[in-house]
């Protein structure tokens, strides 16, 4: 499997792939790499959150870190499946011929640029998380807990980390969308316009959702 071809000449890559039986081995490997990277970042975030509640229970930091890592790892695979289901439904609506396995395979290959995003996320987290101002909550007063969580969410370091990760994620998502469009066009019998529509609609919704979450609902704003 020539993954460099996937980046430089995706049409040729998927053209070759269309002659083979659908296989989730390489896409699964790509997703696993992304999931591991996401898990590492999830561990870092969970450990930070655990410091917030470290006064409540012994070992709270480890518990939240493990849950954070597990959640991030599993959610990567869930995202893969959900994206594959969405693309499969849309390409079917547009008279595409791709099977679910084939669409899942294409989706997995298309997420290859996300590896860069995941690795960059780890590096950024390693830089920014130690700068975060975490005030451990003393006692179980809900108002204190709420104030501490708000304080954490508005922390400048965390906010900057979130902003950079989201923008980088959007840029690489557009790259993935390009790969997905070639995949659906080549392997699912869609023309270029329909392939772009099939990929563009969910990706556009995702980007809008991300930006709205980032700029409107994130405490502290931009």
């Amino acid at each position, binding site marked *: 499997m020539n993954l460099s071809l996937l980046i430089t000449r995706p049409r040729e890559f998927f053209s070759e792939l269309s002659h083979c039986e659908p296989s989730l081995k390489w896409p699964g490997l790509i997703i696993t790499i992304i999931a591991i990277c996401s898990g590492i970042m999830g561990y870092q975030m969970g450990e930070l959150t655990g410091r917030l509640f470290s006064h409540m229970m012994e070992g709270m930091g480890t518990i939240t870190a493990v849950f954070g890592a597990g959640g991030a790892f599993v959610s990567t695979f869930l995202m893969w499946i959900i994206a594959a289901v969405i693309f499969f439904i849309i390409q079917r609506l547009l008279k595409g011929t791709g099977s679910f396995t084939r669409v899942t395979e294409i989706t997995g290959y298309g997420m290859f640029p996300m590896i860069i995003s995941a690795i960059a996320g780890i590096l950024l987290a390693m830089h920014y998380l130690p700068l975060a101002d975490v005030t451990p909550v003393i006692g179980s007063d809900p108002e204190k807990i709420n104030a501490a969580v708000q304080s954490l969410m508005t922390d*400048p370091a965390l906010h900057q980390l979130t902003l950079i990760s989201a923008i980088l994620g959007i840029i690489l998502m557009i790259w993935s969308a390009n790969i997905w469009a070639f995949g659906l066009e080549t392997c699912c019998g869609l023309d270029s316009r329909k392939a772009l529509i099939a990929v563009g609609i969910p990706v556009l919704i995702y980007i809008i959702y991300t930006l709205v979450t980032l700029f409107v609902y994130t405490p502290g704003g931009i």
Partner: protein
Amino acid sequence: MRIPAILLLILAILSPVSAAVPGAEEAAAQVQVTNISTDPEVLMPYDTATLTLTLANTGTESVAISRAELLDKDIRILSDTYGKVGAIGAGNTMKFTFTIQAGGRTGIFYPVFSLDFRDANYLRHPVKLVVQENPVEIAVLKKPDTFTMGKKEEVTLHIGNPRDNAVSGVTVIPSGSHEITPTSYFVGEMGPDGVADIPFSVTPGSGDPITFTVRYMNGINTHEVAYTLPVNPGTSKKRASPVLSNVVIESEKDYWRVTGDVTNSGLETANAVEISADTPAEPVFPYKIYAVGALKPDDFSSFELTFRTDANTTMVPLIASYKDDDGNLFSETTLVETGQAETRAPAPESEIPTPLIIGLIAVAALVVAGVILFTRRR
């Protein structure tokens, strides 16, 4: 022989005795001193008093009196001699009042009352007069072990009259640079061996002693006696004592967070306990000051403070203030080490500069755009 004879003649001419009228002597013998009184009854050295003698004529004839006087070498007679008194009728009484002043000596004196009858001889009557030194005595019945600046304490005076006569107008007046109530206390008359307990509330304002002056009257004479009570402010053995322990200081992003326990190790309740950081620390929210409330002896409570310091500060004073039951404010200071400035957490300036972030994102966007364009053209 001629000279003595002449002298005897002159004496005979000048002597009033020689003028005694037969029968008048018997009448004068019926004149008696029936009552003697002095005011005050007992004098103090240099006191002025009045001495009153009452004469009664118990005879059946009136008796002519030419002069009445009081004589003594130790007692000064301030009033004039009674001259040309007249006659005291049969069965009548007559009073003679003299103003006298005691000398500097104490003891019992006997000035002589001398009554000169016109038609008879003299009546001489010694009068007992007592002069005592004994002033009013003052003692402190109750006072605190140690005075504390600004803390109200109770002082009780015990005053007594050791004299054989009553004294009047007894007033106790405290003085000194302190807040003392009442400002004076009027006791009034105190009989012989009389006592009175007088409470005062004293709030020391300095280390000056308190002078209690007792003023009283012995007859018309004003006397005073003073008692000096040293203050010497110090620390009360029973006072509340907030002690900070289990103090943990943590460096936050740009300020310090101190947590710990405050325990009242004194024997009195500490009211309105507050913990705060003093200069050079600059208190910041969320815990500029921590109000603990009342702490009974041996009670404790946790506290938390947040403050900012400059880079050169290594020690910060924490102040535990409290009030006693009278509302007097006290405070105790505990120094905590913040350590060297180099040990503090890095400031947020170490974050990646915003232009660099924008540049990296722009490069990533350009790379992705280039890849997309490149793949689309092929």
